[in-house]
Structure formats: C-alpha cells, structure tokens
C-alpha cells in the first residue's frame, strides 16, 4: 500500500506549523554541526538532516501524552515530540540545564514529561521497550500510543523482531517506524536486507506493513494517523516504512565515500523542506514566500535563544557523576 494523498487538506496554520517544526530540526542540526566544529559541543553527533519529514510527520499525528522512543539519531525525534530546543542544546553542550542534566549527551536526549523516552543508542533496543510502554498503556486503559523509530539497519536486530511479534500477539498500540535512509552507517541496505522493502516483513507477524514517501511530510502524517487510529481502537501495531535519505554524514567526520555524489544530488532534489515550502506556496497557495521567510526568522530566534541558553548554563561539578545511579526521588 502506498499512501500519497491526504484525505482532508491541511489548513494554512497546520502547514506553516509543520514547516516550522521541520525547519527547526534542520537549523538545529546545522547549528550543531557548526558548534561541534567550533569545539563548543563535546558530544558526538548523528544528525537528522534530510529526514525531518519523518519525525515531524509522525509526531504531528500524535497526542501530547503519546510516547516516542528515539535512536542514536534522536534530535529530530525529540524536537518533534516537544522536548525544548534549549534543553537539548544544553545537553549537547554538557551543561546541567540539559534535558538529562548532562548525563546523557546527544544519543540519549529525552524528556518523559512530554512523552519522549531517553533516546536509546543501542540499535534496535528501543523496540521491545516501546512494546512494554504500549502494554502498560493498554493495562492502564489510557489509549496512549507508543512510537518506536529505527533505521533499516536497526530492522535487522533480533530485538526488533521479538518486539514486533509480541506487539502483534497482544495487539498493542505501538507503531514501528522504520526510517529507511538506505544506509546503516556505511552499509547499503541491499547488502543486509533480502526482501525488497522492510515493510514486507510485517507479513511475518500478521500486522500491516505500510510504505510511505518519507520525504513527504503530509504522506507520513496521513499514514501515521491511520496507524494510530487502528492502534487506539485496539487493532494492534503497524510497521510503517518511510523511504528517506540522510543528507549528511552518518556521524561527525563522515565523507560518505560509500555512496555516490549523483545519488546524493538526486535526493537533494527531494529535500523534504523544499518540497513542503513549494507545496505551501505553489500547490496549495496558502502562504507566500515572504511568509515562509518569516517562519525562518522565527526559527532563527529560537535557535539563537537555545544556543545562548546552552552557552550561559553552568557545567556540572565532576562529583555529580556519582548521583542518580539509583532513583533518588523527584
């Protein structure tokens, strides 16, 4: 099944909001890269540039009290779920005001107060935890949905398969979102996945497998809505494969020599931000280029504020390393 069209056309406010969210992630990541090169961010980084439509499309279809479990590449997931840009940036700077009080770093950003689990950097390990969260929601009768993001590389982890089977047998409200960006670090998907689509594996668990253009935020949002509705109705999980591309290196200092410049150029033409702004201004004609530029200004202000906040925040005392091994209360 290929989802390409939206049932109800989005309003101007909705579209501008989606653009705002996606641009915030893009600019956040670009700034991170620059700040890393300036030596201001000690944390290693896996940037989300190019995949913004997935996190924003998925999270815009959720309730605030739904849960998200991110990966080693979690800034986009966290921002889209509503973790504050200030607290994520401060975390990357290693400041006590960070969302994990400087104990987590880039790969563990999260804030349970907005439904974002601390991100999990062991590839695939978040999937069974997401199933537990969904089981808990079912037991508590809250109708909360849980999202597990993972890459096509992560889809080969045993943990993901155990998780999908358990979610299927118990019909749990969880969505497995595979962000297929064609490479796991340097390894191309063709070398490690024998089926054509990761979503084809859903059949093995008796759950729907849906493929969507991961660079089309509206398509991702629509596919997620359908899966979320199913999940809330008690009809169980969905595996949603979003075809996308990382428009940056895997992590810091990656020259991407395992892929061609032609391929990169091809995907750059499908940049999800460019597509959305074109859609808004040219297809839907719900905003002008000037209004789009105004969104960009708002985003710049948020970014500057986040960076200032992170720079001005204090560093932790070394001995704070000894705290929080065990739960110490709220």
């Amino acid at each position, binding site marked *: 099944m290929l989802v390409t069209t939206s049932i109800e056309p989005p309003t101007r406010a909705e579209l501008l909001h989606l653009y705002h969210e996606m641009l915030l992630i893009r600019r956040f990541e670009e700034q991170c890269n620059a700040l890393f090169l300036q030596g201001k961010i000690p944390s290693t980084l896996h940037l989300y540039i190019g995949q913004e439509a997935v996190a924003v499309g998925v999270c815009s279809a959720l309730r605030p009290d739904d849960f998200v479990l991110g990966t080693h590449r979690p800034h986009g997931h966290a921002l889209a779920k509503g973790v504050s840009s200030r607290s994520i940036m401060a975390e990357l700077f290693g400041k006590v005001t960070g969302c994990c009080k400087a104990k987590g770093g880039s790969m563990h950003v999260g804030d349970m107060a907005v439904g974002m689990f601390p991100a999990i950097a062991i590839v695939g390990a978040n999937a069974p935890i997401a199933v537990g969260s969904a089981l808990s929601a079912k*037991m508590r009768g809250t109708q909360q949905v849980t999202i597990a993001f993972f890459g096509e590389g992560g889809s080969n982890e045993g943990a993901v398969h155990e998780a999908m*089977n358990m979610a299927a047998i118990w019909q749990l409200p969880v969505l497995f979102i595979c962000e297929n960006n064609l490479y796991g670090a340097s390894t191309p998907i063709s070398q490690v996945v024998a089926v054509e689509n990761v979503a084809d594996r859903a059949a093995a668990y008796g759950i729907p497998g849906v493929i969507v253009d991961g660079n089309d935020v509206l398509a991702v949002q629509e596919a997620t809505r359908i899966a979320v509705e199913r999940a809330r109705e008690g009809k169980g999980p969905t595996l949603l494969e979003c075809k996308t591309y990382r428009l940056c290196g895997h992590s810091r200092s990656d020259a991407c020599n395992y892929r061609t410049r032609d391929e990169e150029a091809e995907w750059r033409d499908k940049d999800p931000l460019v597509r959305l702004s074109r859609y808004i201004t040219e297809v839907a004609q719900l905003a002008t280029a000037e209004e789009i530029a105004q969104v960009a200004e708002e985003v710049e202000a948020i970014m500057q504020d986040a960076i200032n906040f992170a720079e001005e925040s204090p560093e932790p005392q070394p001995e704070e390393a000894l705290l929080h091994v065990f*739960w110490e209360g709220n």
Partner: protein
Amino acid sequence: MPEMTIAEALREGIREEMRRDPSVFCLGEDIGIPGGFGGAFTVTLGLSDEFGHDRILDTPISEIGIAGVAIGAAMTGMRPIADVQYGDFLFCMMDQLANQAAKMTYMSGGTVKVPLVMRAPVGSTRRGSQHAQSLEAFFTHIPGLKVLAPSTAYDAKGLLKSAIRDDNPVLIFEHKLLYGSKGGRSEKGALTAVGEVPSEDYVVPIGKGVVRRTGKDVTIVGKLLTVYRALEAAQELAQEGIEAEVIDPRTLIPLDKEIILESVRKTGRLVVVEEDNITHGWGAEIAAMVAEEAFFYLDAPIKRVAAPDTPPPFAPPMEAFYVPSTARVVSAVKSLF
C-alpha cells in the same frame, strides 16, 4: 505462623503485592498457562486463577522482549515482575539489563525510574552447562541494578516485597535446590528450606545481611545454597572446637559491608563460599573489601571456596566436585588454624 517453602513464600509475596497494588503484574514463559507448571519452579502456580491472564502474562520465548517489555512498562507506571525460566537465559537479554534497565535512571539525569523486578533461578542441578550457572555476581558489576539472593522462605517473601516496592531494577536470584518445588517440578538433591513465614504484611529491607550462626573463631560468608553448606560445615567444625560465625548478606547490591567487617573484626579469619567460578568473582570482591577495611584484624589469609574455572559439568560425580561441598568448606577453615 505458617510454614512454607521458598516457592510458596514467593508465590504469597507476589499474591499479596498484586492484591495491594494494581500496577504489579507478572510476565514470563509458561507462568500461567492452564495445565502448565506455574513457571519452571512453580512459583506462579495458580496465580492466574485469581488475577487472570492479563496480569499473569504468558510470553513467547523471547528473552529480549520480556526484559524490554518489563522496562517499558516500568517506565510508564507499572511494576512488572519478570520471570526468567533459567538464570542462564539472562545472557539472552543482557543488553536490556545492562545497557537499558541499569542505565536509564542515570542517563536521564535521575528523571526516569525503572521499578522492575526480575526473578531468576540459579544453581547447578544435573542439567548440564546451560541451565546451571550462578550468575548473581555478574550483575553486581553493573551499576544501577540491585541484586538480591534470598536463602530462606522468610527472606524470599520479605525481600521480594521490598523489591516490588523499590523504584529501581531489582534482580532476585533464587537457588533451584532451595525452592522446595513439589510434584513433577521437585529437584533431586534439594534441601528443604522450609521456614516460618508470617501471614501479615512484612518486608525484609534491601541491604541488610543476617548472622545465621554466631561464633568467635572464623567468619564464613555464603549466599543462597552455600549458606547451608557453611552452616553444615560450622556444625562439623564445632565438634572439633572451632566456632564459626556464618553470615548471609541476603543482598549483594547494596552490600551490608558492616555485618561482614564486624564479624571479621571479632574472629580474625574469613572464608567466602560461593557456587560461581572462582576467578574475578564475588568472593574476590569480599576478600578485597575486608583486606582494605579490616586488614589489621586478620590473623590468617582470606580463603575462597568456589567452583573451579570450568563451565558447570553434567555427570553427578563431576557436578559434586564442581559445586562447593561442606567438606571443602571445612578443610578451608581448618587450613587457617
């Protein structure tokens, strides 16, 4: 006061906590299937009659999934008790325990709690190498996990209740020869660790050891089955005029160091007995701790009695050679005089 086996005491502990708190539930393989076993050692037998199959949740044979599901549920308001069929299978879920459960509170800067309990049977019982290991010390090396090792029915129930109410991941190791499982699930060579267990609500605090026998000449520290080997050895030694003090820490993390140190300051001699492989083991840690903190009270070298550095063997004569016996404890103690 009613007398119970450890399996029965654990079952009553689970029952009472599930009645008290609707967020408590059990999950694991073969724990509630009608006509099944109630877990490999009968601990959950009959509980699904009272609580139903949603709260006594039978899972697929998916150890990573069991651990991950317990973690995710614990982080979102539930208090899961996960049943590991054999402790050896903890290795299948090692990432979930060591990287996820143990580190979640820390990595989140103390903003997230993971109140889960994981119960795992250990001990060598004629099943060969993969259903026999004593893995409790392994997990004492992972900051963020609490590790319990009850050796009596009273402690099993009281510590389990403490574990369920604790806001951290707690691993409870239970010895197969101490359960007192009955019928088809009974164990050859099992001890009858039957003891008095109060029917009213009580807990055994995590982090407090107990003196099982007082003595002035030597301190023997054991855990799980080796507490009983130490007690048997103490009886034999008494006939020869050596009065051994036997300490059961009950909780490995956090460890009641003071109860061990206080005893060693009195006796001046220490023997640590465990069923795990000797090298880099728990005994070495206890020995190092005592050497650092009570060296000048020692009158003799510290001795360890443990399994040799081999996988657990199958054939009964070899298994009996592998698992520390009462005789080995006796001779270790005598070598100090």
